[in-house]
């Protein structure tokens, strides 16, 4: 009985440790308070948010082409699907032909409400953080979103939120959606500065 209790407690502690490690994989905006130059602080905040933006869970649905990707190696989606005129596939092969509004762990089919591809104007694959940053700020390319709507998108959109809860042993996006929302809000509050194009930190 005592052994069982110890095993249970160890399991609990391991799970808690994993959760802490996951959250700390993405820094809190306050971690950048020490950067006194506001422009540099804003750029640093975006670079931190870039850990999420450039994570495989986000990139798979922000392809730079007509085919979504899968896996951490971003291999082409199987079965073969195409973007279609509304970024949700073509008749017979719509995203929701297979994807539900929640993960199906038994079949390993990921799901979230409104499953669809980001429009081509929001492609992230193969782009550096400078380009992505400029794109995110540009209403012509970001779906005509205001800065407040950008914060809302990153902080509360359920499809975006899937990235942290991808199911079936997929690697989640780093940190939490709440922390990502806070980073984007802090980035905007500091002027929404973009990392320079030619810098060793801009990948």
């Amino acid at each position, binding site marked *: 009985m005592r052994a069982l209790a110890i095993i249970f407690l160890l399991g609990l502690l391991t799970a808690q440790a994993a959760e802490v490690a996951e959250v700390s994989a993405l820094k809190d905006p306050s971690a950048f308070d020490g950067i006194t130059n506001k422009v540099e602080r804003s750029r640093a905040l975006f670079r931190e948010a870039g850990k999420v933006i450039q994570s495989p869970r986000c990139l798979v649905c922000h392809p730079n082409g007509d085919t979504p990707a899968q896996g951490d190696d971003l291999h082409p989606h199987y079965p073969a699907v195409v973007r279609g005129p509304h970024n949700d596939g073509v*008749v*017979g*092969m719509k995203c*929701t*032909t297979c994807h539900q509004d929640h993960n199906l762990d038994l*079949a390993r089919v990921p799901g979230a409400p409104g499953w669809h591809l980001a429009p081509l104007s929001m492609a992230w694959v193969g782009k550096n953080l400078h380009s992505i940053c400029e794109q995110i700020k540009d209403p012509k390319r970001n779906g005509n979103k205001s800065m407040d709507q950008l914060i809302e998108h990153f902080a509360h959109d359920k499809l975006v939120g899937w990235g942290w809860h991808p199911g079936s042993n997929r690697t989640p996006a780093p940190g939490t959606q709440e922390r990502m929302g806070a980073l984007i809000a802090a980035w905007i509050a500091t002027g929404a500065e973009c990392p320079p194009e030619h810098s060793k930190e801009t990948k």
Partner: protein
Amino acid sequence: MSKIKLKLNGVDREVEADPEMPLLWAIRDLLGLPGTKYGCGQALCGACTIHLDDQPIRSCVTPISRAEGKSVTTIEGLSPNGDHPLQKAWIEFGVPQCGFCQTGQIMTAAALLKAIPKPTDKDIEQSLSGNLCRCGTYTRIRSAIKQVAGIKETT
């Protein structure tokens, strides 16, 4: 367990099932329509394709709760007497070989022609790319679809 109401092939039905039960199971085992096939169980082969409110879906990964209050059409309901133009063309062209995937192929093709009455070869390929046929009857499938669409085959 929940009581779920849906319209199956035009008839109101109620089924008592776990809301997460795949619709395919309910259709085959609880509602007694075995025309829809179980292939991979992971939405990778298309054998289980049916229509949910006229849209093709993979019933093997669709929880029955998604069908609540909706219209479900299976191969048995595509036409009253198995005489949908696609079914007639399928017979004329001798499309099936083993036949296991064919109900899924026909259900996707029917939705395609409803949305795009004159599909291009590319339309056909893209729409049916998720319906696998291990016998390799793809050329006959395409010919049958094009005949129904009134498109002359070029050789």
